[in-house]
């Protein structure tokens, strides 16, 4: 109990850093995933912006990068990270790597949710003379919004997971904290405190996602 009080300030600080990493990588990875996923959906054969070559490139990119285990991805993207964010370690690099990995993961989630939109609804919009861009904005995204929110909720939880792994390359946050003080210094209190905080954070995110999705779906 005493120890818990002792580690509390650190625990809270690291939780804050983790949330920051999650939020920042969600922002970039979320936008990236939405763009790539929507791109996959609209450029495929029969899509509103049918572009077989673009579709093929996106598809190969996603298929190549998505299955790579994050721990290997994290190490492999270091050169690219130095190019983009100036370093291959630390919190900034962690955000970069997570955002990139999340882009590919979220892209598939987005695509899968868009595929479930009844094609007739898009056809109805086309029949009014709406442009492809308008259809993306006013039909495709809004019609799939409920499932998209659930998909993003799923993605955020995966990002929390990745943020912990990113502790390995010196990304701050609960993962790093648990490894450095809990695992390496054999302090189960630290490990378990980190675990409990992560479980609570994940539960909150899931509850929030469910609530939002239910609002959107009106049930």
């Amino acid at each position, binding site marked *: 109990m005493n120890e818990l009080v002792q580690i509390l300030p650190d625990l809270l600080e690291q939780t804050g850093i983790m949330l920051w990493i999650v939020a920042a990588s969600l922002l970039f990875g979320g936008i990236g995933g939405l763009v790539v996923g929507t791109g996959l959906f609209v450029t495929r054969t029969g899509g509103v912006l049918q572009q077989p070559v673009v579709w093929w490139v996106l598809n190969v990119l996603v298929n190549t990068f998505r299955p790579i285990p994050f721990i290997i991805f994290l190490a492999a993207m270091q050169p690219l990270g130095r190019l983009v964010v100036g370093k291959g370690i630390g919190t900034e690099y962690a955000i970069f790597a997570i955002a990139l990995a999340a882009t590919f993961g979220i892209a598939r989630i987005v695509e899968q949710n868009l595929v479930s939109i*009844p094609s*007739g*609804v898009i*056809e*109805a*919009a*086309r*029949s*009014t*003379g*709406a*442009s492809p861009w*308008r259809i993306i904005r*006013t*039909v495709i995204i*809004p*019609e799939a*919004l409920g499932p998209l929110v659930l998909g993003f909720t799923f993605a955020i939880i995966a990002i929390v997971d990745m943020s912990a792994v990113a502790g390995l390359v010196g990304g701050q946050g609960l993962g790093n904290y648990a490894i450095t003080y809990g695992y390496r210094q054999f302090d189960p209190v630290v490990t378990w405190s980190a675990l409990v905080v992560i479980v609570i954070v994940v539960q909150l995110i899931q509850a929030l996602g469910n609530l939002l999705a239910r609002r959107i779906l*009106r049930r």
Partner: protein
Amino acid sequence: MTQHIVLDRVSKRFPPAKRGGDPIVAVDDVSLSIEQGEVFGIIGYSGAGKSTLVRLINQLEPVTEGAIRVGDVEISGLRGKALREQQTRIGMIFQRFNLLHSRTVAGNVAYPLEVVGVPRAERRRRVEELLEFVGLAGRADAYPEQLSGGQQQRVGIARALAANPQVLLADEATSALDPETTAEVLDLLARVNRELGVTIVVITHEMEVITRIADRVAVMEAGRVVETGSTYDVFTRPTTDVAKRFVATVVRALPEGDELVALRAQHEGRLFTISFTDEGASEARVFGALARAGVDFNLVHGGVDDIQGRVYGLLTIAVRGDAAAIDAALAQIGPGVTVEEQR
């Protein structure tokens, strides 16, 4: 009457399902001319190519061959923005309504108005007017899933009419509805045609729909139009087998096979079939002649139909009595009614 929609030797082929297979010919060398302000029906069995044909008219699909003109514009030659502008002048409704579930009724109806850039205040006014027209005033804030199928189709119709199109395409618009709701929706379409002067193309596999609202009809089979004419003519004098089969679904046609055998078993005497159109004569003349000759008869099969406000009758009667008297009576009936003995 001016031609409104003209299809000139139009074909649509889809790439083969398997590499190296034959392309799928969905529409095969179709020429049609649809008049300004008419309701034109296209009937055919599943897979006949009806939906493909109608999607060529508003160019949701490009033609493979041939040309399509709507009004003064050859729409089949347009792409991109120019095509989209023409599409705003053609409304379309669907079997599954295809409403946006992310929007309210009002939001759905407003959609085409947003596309053509109508300002917000004007949009609101127009939506109200349209909902009034289709009988859904007061349901503006409902979501599609809160409405019955018939109401959803009314929203679909309001949406299709929002941008003041001159043409309305209806692809199986009543196929998901029960008979009563079908009748209501068809009445609404007839009103759209009558009051707004919109040219309507209805696609269906139900002859009911055609006889209720279509002025003229084209019968499709395997991508081709095999028969065209006024609904009344196709109905009373179908020439192709498909057309005959469709007609038989609404009129209880001539008794055949088992039915005929059963009729013979149930009724004494000779069986005659009387057919007449609205060209003056009716069954009364036949009944009168038989009564005057003192022969006994009763109605055993068939009925009288109303097609676009015109009558068409096909009745089978069983007649008992002296053969010579019967023949003499029937011989004096005169033109307009055909009497045929079922042997």
